[in-house]
C-alpha cells in the first residue's frame, strides 16, 4: 500500500471530508455540500500549498487525531484550538511539518465549532459527481470518519506558504446575518417580518450541516395552507410550522415546502458555521442589490 495515506487515530464527534462541494446537480436532488466555513478551508489549503479545491477534514467541536504514513505538511485553522504533534505543541493557523508515523492532534475548539485540517496533496478519496465532500443529508461522498479510517492522500503540488500570522475572523460572539427578504415574505404577517429583523434569536443545539436552527420568537404566517415544493438556495431562511427560522447550510435539501422568508448574504455563512449553540443571532434586513 502506498505511504501517501493518513490514518485516523481519533475521529472525534463528527469529522468529514470536505471540498468545494458538488454544485450544479440540484435539479437531480443532489445537495451542494462542501466545507461550511469555506474561508477556513481555503486558508488551510493555501497554508500547505494545495489548490483551493483540494479536500480537507472538517471537525466538529472536539477535533480529531491523524497519523500520516509519510512526512507531510499540515495546517489547522477555522475554530481556534490546541494543536499538538506527538504531544508537543504545534502552531495553529500555520504550516506544520509532521513526520511519517507521528500523530497530529486537533484539540477541542476554544471557540467556534469547526476546525479544518489540510494535508499537503489533499485528501484523495474517490470523488462522487466531481466532489469528495461528505453530504450528511443524501449520504453521497465518504462516510464520516471513524477511528481507524485510512484516507489516501494526493501528490503535493506547490510549496507551503511562508507566513508568520494569518488573518482570520474570530468565531462570532454574536452572529449578525444580513438578509434580503423574500421570496415568500408575503406568507408572513407584518409583525412576523418585524420580529425577524428586530428581535434576538439564539443558535439552537439542533443545528447541523443541513441547517442552522434557531430559538426565539415564532414567526406567524399570514396565510394557511401548504406551499408546493420549490427550489431552495444556500442561506435560505426557511420557516417550518414551529415558526423558528432555519438557515440552510451546505447540505440543505434542494427543494422544500416551507416558505422562505428571507435569504442570508453568502458572506455571512462562514460565521454561521462557527456559531456555537446559544450564540445570539440577529437578522438584519438589507435591500436587494440592483
Amino acid at each position: 500500500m502506498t505511504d501517501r495515506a493518513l490514518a485516523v487515530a481519533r475521529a472525534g464527534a463528527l469529522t468529514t471530508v470536505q471540498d468545494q462541494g458538488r454544485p450544479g446537480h440540484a435539479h437531480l436532488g443532489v445537495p451542494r455540500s462542501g466545507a461550511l466555513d469555506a474561508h477556513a478551508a481555503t486558508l488551510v489549503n493555501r497554508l500547505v500549498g494545495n489548490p483551493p479545491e483540494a479536500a480537507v477534514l472538517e471537525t466538529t467541536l472536539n477535533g480529531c487525531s491523524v497519523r500520516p504514513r509519510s512526512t507531510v505538511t499540515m495546517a489547522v485553522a477555522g475554530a481556534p484550538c490546541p494543536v499538538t504533534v506527538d504531544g508537543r505543541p504545534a502552531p495553529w493557523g500555520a504550516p506544520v511539518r509532521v513526520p511519517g508515523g507521528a500523530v497530529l492532534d486537533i484539540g477541542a475548539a476554544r471557540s467556534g465549532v469547526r476546525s479544518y485540517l489540510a494535508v499537503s496533496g489533499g485528501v484523495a478519496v474517490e470523488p462522487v459527481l466531481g466532489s469528495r465532500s461528505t453530504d450528511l443529508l443524501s449520504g453521497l461522498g465518504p462516510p464520516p470518519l471513524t477511528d481507524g479510517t485510512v484516507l489516501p492522500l494526493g501528490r503535493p503540488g506547490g510549496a507551503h506558504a511562508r507566513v508568520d500570522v494569518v488573518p482570520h475572523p474570530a468565531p462570532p460572539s454574536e452572529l449578525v446575518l444580513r438578509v434580503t427578504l423574500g421570496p415568500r415574505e408575503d406568507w408572513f404577517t407584518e409583525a412576523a417580518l418585524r420580529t425577524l429583523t428586530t428581535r434576538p434569536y439564539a443558535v439552537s443545539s439542533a443545528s447541523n450541516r443541513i441547517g442552522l436552527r434557531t430559538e426565539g420568537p415564532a414567526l406567524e404566517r399570514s396565510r394557511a395552507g401548504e406551499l408546493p415544493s420549490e427550489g431552495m438556495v444556500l442561506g435560505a431562511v426557511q420557516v417550518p410550522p414551529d415558526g423558528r427560522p432555519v438557515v440552510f447550510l451546505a447540505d440543505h435539501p434542494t427543494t422544500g415546502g416551507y416558505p422562505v422568508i428571507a435569504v442570508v448574504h453568502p458572506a455571512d455563512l462562514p460565521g454561521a458555521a462557527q456559531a456555537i449553540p446559544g450564540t445570539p443571532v440577529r437578522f438584519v434586513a438589507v435591500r436587494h442589490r440592483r
Partner: protein
Amino acid sequence: MRALPVGDRALLIEVDTGEEAEALHAELLRRRATGELSVAEIVPAARTVLLDGLEAPSRLAERLASWEVPPVPRRAEDVVEIPVRYDGPDLPDVAAHWGVDEAEVARIHAKAEFRVAFCGFAPGFGYLTGLPREVPRRATPRTVVPAGSVALAGPYTGVYPRSSPGGWQLIGTTDTVLWDHARVPAALLAPGTRVRFTAVAAA
C-alpha cells in the same frame, strides 16, 4: 409568470400550473444551451423554476416578461420503462381510496404515461406526474421505506432510490436502479424524462 428575487443571485419564477412550469423549464434549458442564459442551477419544482447563480437577476427578471414560452411538444422521445411488481403494502388503502380493487390500481398505474416534473428529497428521486387520480400521504410516515419502492402521494408517483423514511403510499417494487453515482448519468430520472411502469409478476 412572476419572478421573485431570492437573495442577490437567484430568481424564483412562479407560474400557475405544472404544465407551465414544465414548459418554462424546457425553455430555460434551451436558452442556456444557446448561451443566452448563464446560470449555475436550474431547479424546476411543482409551480416554479429556481435559477441560482445569476450575475444580474433583476435584469433577467425584466427580460423574462417579454419571453414567449412555447408549450412542451409531446414528441415521441425515449420512454424509460420501469418494471414493477404491484405488491406494495398500501395497495389495499389506495384501492379503497379510489373505490376499485387492487388489481385495478395496478392497471390504472401501468396504463398512465408519466413525466418527471422535478426531483428532490433524495438524489435521483423524481416526482412523476401523469396519474389520473390522487391519494393522500399516509397519516403516519414509515421510518424505513425499502429502496425500489414505487409509491404515490398527492398527484405524484415516485420510486425510492435508496432506503429512507417516507410517508408515501407504497404500491409496488422495482429492481431498476434509480441512482448509481458510478454510472453516467447517475440519475435514471431527470426533470423532463418520460416514464412508463410495466407490471411484472411477483417473484
